[in-house]
């Protein structure tokens, strides 16, 4: 039997050089998908041999908002919803930097929704990685902008009556040059998309559907986090370049995954630089 059990001090996981090891184990619940997403991101950095001096990981508030604190790079934890606005300041002030925003659905699309659509519209070079768990986890499982129709949360105890956002559709309509959706089960494909996005210039958006076994999935009787991952295996289909408007996301029927948008558009800080260069010649 070749299972080696080691204590933390001499444990050498290949991604750990990208992670603040003195902060592990992380705060996420058992079977929460955020950790898997963070690992996928670290794996993408590793396979690209990404220049860590140029990376700035930025997050907002919430469970996923804690992500920035785990990366061994420059990193900043903003107030609720403001990660993208901060990242815009970083990128415009120093275009050599590579801001990556990792945050949750409530942070990015409720309180931060305005910043999201406008950064996408401007096509500011940044990667936005959204862990969508359909509720506000850190505050105890309230409904949010992606909570599905009739889902139970502590603030929709009789079933959610609001129409949820389809995040990939919002991103595409706002002007993102790269848009993808995966579930936490698609860790490998997610890593590939992250690699692609990290090498592409402009506003990139990747949604990762993730279990929240402690709150959302428990209130909605989806079973354990493992059960939710099994359900993802049953219902997810990969349809690259499907129209994001039609990229269905329904736990009862199916979740359409894949890379939906991959296009080119002049990037904001490049445009700023070329305009400034012209003006300075005068």
């Amino acid at each position, binding site marked *: 039997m070749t299972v080696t059990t*080691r204590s933390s001090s001499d444990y050498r996981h290949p991604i750990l050089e990208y992670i603040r090891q003195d902060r592990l184990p992380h705060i996420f619940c058992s079977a929460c998908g955020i950790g*898997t997403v963070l690992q996928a991101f670290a794996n993408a950095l590793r396979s690209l041999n990404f220049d860590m001096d140029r990376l700035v990981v930025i997050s907002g508030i919430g469970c996923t908002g804690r992500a920035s604190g785990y990366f061994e790079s420059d990193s900043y934890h903003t107030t609720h919803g403001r990660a993208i606005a901060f990242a815009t300041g970083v990128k415009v002030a120093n275009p050599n930097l590579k801001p990556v925003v990792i945050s949750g659905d409530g942070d990015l699309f409720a309180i931060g929704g305005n910043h999201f659509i406008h950064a996408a519209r401007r096509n500011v070079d940044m990667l936005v990685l959204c862990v969508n768990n359909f509720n506000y986890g850190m505050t105890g499982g309230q409904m949010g902008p992606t909570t599905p129709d009739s889902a139970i949360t502590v603030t929709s105890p009789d079933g959610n009556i609001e129409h949820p956002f389809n995040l990939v559709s919002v991103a595409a309509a706002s002007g993102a040059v790269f848009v993808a959706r995966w579930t936490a089960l698609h860790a490998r494909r997610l890593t590939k998309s992250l690699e692609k996005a990290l090498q592409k210039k402009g506003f990139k958006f990747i949604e990762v559907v993730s279990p929240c076994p402690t709150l959302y999935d428990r209130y909605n009787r989806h079973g354990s986090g493992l059960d939710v*991952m099994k359900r993802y295996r049953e219902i997810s289909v990969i349809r690259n370049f499907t129209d994001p408007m039609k990229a269905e996301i329904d736990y009862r029927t199916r979740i359409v995954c894949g890379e939906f948008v991959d296009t080119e558009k002049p990037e904001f800080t490049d445009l700023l630089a070329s305009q400034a260069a012209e003006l300075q010649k005068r």
Partner: protein
Amino acid sequence: MLTRQERAPIVPEEESNTKWRIVVNEDWCKGCGFCYTFCPREVLEKSDKFNTKGYYPPVATNIDRCVGCGLCEALCPDFAIHVEENEEHSKRGGK
């Protein structure tokens, strides 16, 4: 009580002549079950012993079947499992 840093590593169990070795950090495992559930080769199983936090980490009961695909590693939300090549195996000229 010993702290996490002070605790001595648990000595690896008997090595077999397999190409792959699965390394588990029991301290970090939160027992989600992703690794042994989604392993395509049924290499891993849930252990019958729990860790200090009360979670059941995985054990590789079928390491000979492991092809080193690393899915267990990729899915683990807690960075608590990874797959490495078994140097002993290479030294012995194994493929």
